[in-house]
């Protein structure tokens, strides 16, 4: 029944297919890419797209297509990991606050509200200074600024679920609170949580690319799409291909996630209005 609704949704098939291809390319970049991401002088410097280097080469003669393929791995990894981090932290916080209410709710949501006001860019800069410009800094910067959205969402959902008959039934047969909450209520919220995850991942990819573009993200020779766009931006007038191709890769990914999220929302969670609203 559910399966048929998925297969009938054209947006789901196209966007899901595109993302599968992308994940495949990212996972097997070592075999698919014609060159290594950091191999210099494999072709002429700053060549426009030509036969053999169909996305052109950069200032050090590195193949742009290979760099974008390896960049997909970095960008997707950051997107997935931060979104899952935010999901776990946000779900636990929101679920406990919503289920127990009272002091728990006030304290936890107080913390959430404090984080909510923190400017993402400032926190990201401070964290990358503190932890260095590597994966950890980026990861925490994005994770710490996005989990609050997740926490608010889960809290609102748990508040509604708390009053439903199956929760009362659980209490009547003497289940512990922890068991009711994490074995019964949270699994029932999987639909909306998956939907918000599909909106969170592209947002985080966009944020990573923004931070890298600003120069706070992953450093060369790593080639996340934001890093590539940053490198391309300097020579945009004469060598637009260096910025346009990474930008296209990012754009296609974002569009695919966007339609995937839309179709999942219609199928799994028709009543909600979760959307991609935050980010830069």
């Amino acid at each position: 029944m559910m399966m048929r609704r998925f297969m009938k949704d054209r947006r789901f098939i196209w966007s899901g297919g595109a993302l599968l291809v992308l994940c495949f390319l990212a996972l097997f970049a070592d075999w698919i890419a014609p060159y290594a991401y950091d191999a210099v002088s494999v072709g002429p410097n700053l060549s426009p797209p030509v036969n053999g280097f169909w996305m052109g080469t950069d200032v050090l003669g590195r193949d742009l297509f290979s760099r974008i393929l390896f960049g997909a791995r970095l960008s997707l990894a950051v997107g997935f990991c931060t979104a899952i981090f935010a999901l776990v932290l946000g779900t636990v916080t929101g679920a406990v606050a919503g289920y127990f209410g009272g002091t728990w709710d006030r304290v936890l949501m107080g913390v959430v509200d404090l984080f909510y006001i923190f400017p993402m860019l400032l926190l990201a800069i401070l964290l990358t200074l503190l932890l260095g410009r590597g994966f950890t800094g980026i990861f925490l910067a994005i994770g710490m600024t996005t989990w609050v959205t997740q926490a608010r969402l889960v809290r609102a959902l748990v508040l509604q679920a708390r009053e439903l008959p199956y929760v009362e039934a659980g209490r009547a047969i003497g289940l512990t609170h922890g068991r009711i909450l994490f074995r019964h209520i949270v699994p029932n919220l999987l639909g909306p949580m998956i939907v918000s995850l599909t909106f969170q991942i592209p947002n985080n990819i966009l944020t990573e690319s923004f931070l890298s573009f600003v120069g706070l993200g992953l450093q060369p020779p790593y080639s996340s799409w934001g890093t590539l766009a940053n490198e391309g931006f300097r020579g945009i007038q004469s060598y637009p291909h260096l910025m346009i191709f990474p930008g296209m890769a990012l754009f296609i990914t974002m569009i695919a996630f966007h339609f995937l999220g839309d179709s999942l929302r219609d199928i799994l969670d028709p009543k909600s209005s979760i959307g991609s609203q935050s980010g830069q």
Partner: protein
Amino acid sequence: MMATYLFKRMIQTLATLAFLVVTTFFLLRLAPGGPFDGEKVWPAEIQANIEAKYGLNQPLPKQFLVWAADLLRGDLRESFHYVGTPVTEIIREALPASFQLGGIALLISLILGLALGILSAWKRGTWLDFSAMFIAVSGITLPTYLIATLLVLLFSSWLGWLPPALWEDKLSMILPIVTLSLRPLAIIARMTRTTLLEVLHADYIRTAFSKGLDERTVILKHALRNALIPVVTLLGPITASLITGSYVVETIFQIPGLGQYFVTSVIDRDYPLVMGMTLTYGIILILCNLFVDLTYGIIDPRVRLENVK
């Protein structure tokens, strides 16, 4: 009632602001590197002298208290990087450009976003709906730096119609404003469309139709008012981020606004300027949120202020 609400609200606001400032202060100071670690290597005594002059050799909590005491007197100190320039002056000089850019962008995105959202909900399924949503989806999915670059490439490098940068005459303001407004415009348009479509199923809309009102009156007078509430919620954060200036837009178009200092001041470890910027941002954001909460009551009389979180 109103007085208790305002009082509670003020305490909450001050606590939030204090958290923001304290966290920034200590995170910033825990980060390695200092304001005077340049290429020049000074003898140790000179370094110590400079640090003593700015009080940097004191224990951190004490430094914070001294800073806070200065703040209460309205003194944000002088910048380390722009030697001799008070932070208040830097911010005062940067504010107009950011306010101008952000204000116009907000106005445009609000008007066009609402118009697009209403149009596409009204004419849903038509080409109008599809093209409006195409604009909205591109606005949400394209990174700002890419939009900016593509616009500059197209309109100044290739067509030569508009200047590629600076903030001087009206012509030079077009590209940055368009770049900055595209994303909020897209978010507002989508939100308006979604909520409007939801509201159109409500009973009171059916009643309005059965009274014999035409579609236009029902949508604009009855449905829109209720559909606006979630849109207004988004306005707080959108306004603050627009007014404090998008760092990318200000950097790419070389606009002398607040946004640029957000990143450079931290990288320079210009402690007084970072703190000044954080404070400015926090105050703007809090004012925006307060404004939004008060607007709820006007749009939806059912909302009593006490219930607003």
